[in-house]
């Protein structure tokens, strides 16, 4: 293959490809055009429209949106205690679920990454990935029946004189910790794998006990991965309404948005801004902590 042979043919496709050569700007421009058009215009634009909608109000009978500027929705959100309570309840649960998942996921991920044999690891990875393919809805339904008065949990606990948590906030915490667990295990596993074994050996050679190695070498290196996983557990909890509705009575941000959309879209939009703001703040912090490398 010589440059001459290539230069001689030059069909249209080649000429087009040649156009890009040496023009990184054009390359970048073309590369960016598709995704940005999609992401920015459609997605961000939709979010921007939602933001504007939050400043509108609604005709209470017909449910039609009235496009006049008003701070009514934000006033409601701030002044009425019930909404403050709902936001706080949602955020609190999100934090609890994230912490729970981090605690459960870490040992599992650690075992998978550093202790298991090659075959063991393969089996474990598949075992952890499989639940991702089972329907979210069916999993929640399964928990709903397990938590019910004559469900599995009580069936197992009653002989011991105990009683299951039933439906409620505990159930929400439990089920969500369950649902998002794989999303926490996988990034931590990936992050732990990236830690070269040589570092760990070096630490041990220097005389550190396993716990010290863990605390001072592994944990700090794995922390960004944990943060990466937490992005999902936090965000998924923040917006969920199906699980909340199916295993509890409580009102979360997601349930109020879902039920307000029908007769008060501007209010739903205003409320939706809360998780958006919270997540953007969370993402900025996460990025600084290096989590984006692990997502």
């Amino acid at each position, binding site marked *: 293959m010589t440059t001459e042979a290539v230069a001689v043919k030059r069909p249209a496709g080649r000429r087009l490809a040649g156009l890009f050569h040496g023009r990184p700007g054009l390359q970048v421009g073309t590369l*960016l055009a598709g995704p940005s058009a999609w992401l920015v215009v459609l997605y961000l634009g*939709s979010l921007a429209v939602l933001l504007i909608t939050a400043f509108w109000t609604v005709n209470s009978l017909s449910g039609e949106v009235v496009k006049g500027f008003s701070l009514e929705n934000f006033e409601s959100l701030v002044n009425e205690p019930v909404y403050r309570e709902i936001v706080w309840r949602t955020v609190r649960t999100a934090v609890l679920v994230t912490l729970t998942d981090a605690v459960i996921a870490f040992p599992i991920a650690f075992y998978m990454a550093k202790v298991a044999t090659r075959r063991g690891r393969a089996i474990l990875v598949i075992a952890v990935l499989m*639940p991702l393919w089972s329907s979210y809805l069916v999993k929640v339904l399964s928990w709903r029946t397990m938590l019910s008065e004559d469900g599995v949990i009580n069936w197992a606990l009653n002989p011991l004189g105990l009683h299951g948590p039933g439906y409620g906030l505990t159930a929400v915490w439990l089920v969500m910790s369950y649902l998002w667990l794989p999303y926490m295990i996988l990034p931590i596993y990936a992050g732990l*794998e990236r830690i070269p074994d040589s570092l760990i050996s070096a630490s041990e050679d220097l005389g550190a006990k396993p716990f010290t190695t863990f605390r001072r070498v592994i944990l700090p290196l794995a922390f960004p991965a944990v943060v990466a996983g937490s992005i*999902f557990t936090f965000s998924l909890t923040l917006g969920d309404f199906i699980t909340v509705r199916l295993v509890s009575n409580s009102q979360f941000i997601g349930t109020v948005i879902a039920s307000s959309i029908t007769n008060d879209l501007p209010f739903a939009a205003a409320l939706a801004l809360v998780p958006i703001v919270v997540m953007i703040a969370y993402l900025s912090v996460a990025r600084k902590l290096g989590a984006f490398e692990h997502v």
Partner: protein
Amino acid sequence: MRLSRRAQALLRGVVGLGLAFIYVPLIVIGIYAFNSSKILKWPPPGLTLDWFSKAFESESAREALLTSIEVGLIATAIALLLGTLAAMAVARHRFFGRETISFLVILPIALPGIVTGVALSNTFTQVLGIPLSLLTVVVGHATFCIVVIYNNVVARLRRTSGSFEEASADLGADTWQTFRFVTFPSMKTALAAGALLAFALSFDEIIVTTFTIGAGEETLPIWIFRNLFRPKELPIVDAVAVIVILISIVPVYLAHRLSREEGGVAAGKGAGAVETEATAVP
């Protein structure tokens, strides 16, 4: 890492408990799928295979399954295209707003689904005036699938040095040839792993789908949601879920195999480095 026998046993115990936690609800679903009573009672009074045969016969379930597969394939294809483009731009070039792109790309998945669903649905129906349909569902799904592909490809591209592409160009290949013969082969497994994960995400998605789907259409999650509230058909739903889980063993295994392959030239150090891409999360 050297752990004492006790520590290892303890760790194994914790892992075992964790796995039990993960699988008990799934096993419960499995048992209910054989439940002979229509109401979900525990323990089930009897076992039957009826629900499985009803699941196979159910036309609406089959249609929903096909629709889900359709939507998943198209959304994944779009995500492959756009995610790769974005990843290539970010990994190989420096330009104004590069950091913002990696932030933007993650938004659709970091923001709660209900926000994405409401925003997109509002835009489609109120601003653009287009009716909801499978197309709008595909658009919604592709939006959050892009990040999965993007992450995989960016991770892979960061691992492989750009010098190979420069060398290829020096040898006279034009941009397209370079892509076809140098860049793409090194990305193949990352793309495949990402595609599988993206498909899985789209397949199981319910929240954004609820807000963007048209009246007469159903994806499998929507079908399940609709039948969750038909008490006489509940075990069919469980049977369908079990069937889906069993079928999904194949793609999950494939994804794992793909991530094991050391893809391309100058693959990373450490046994696990390649696996980081397959496990780049939803």
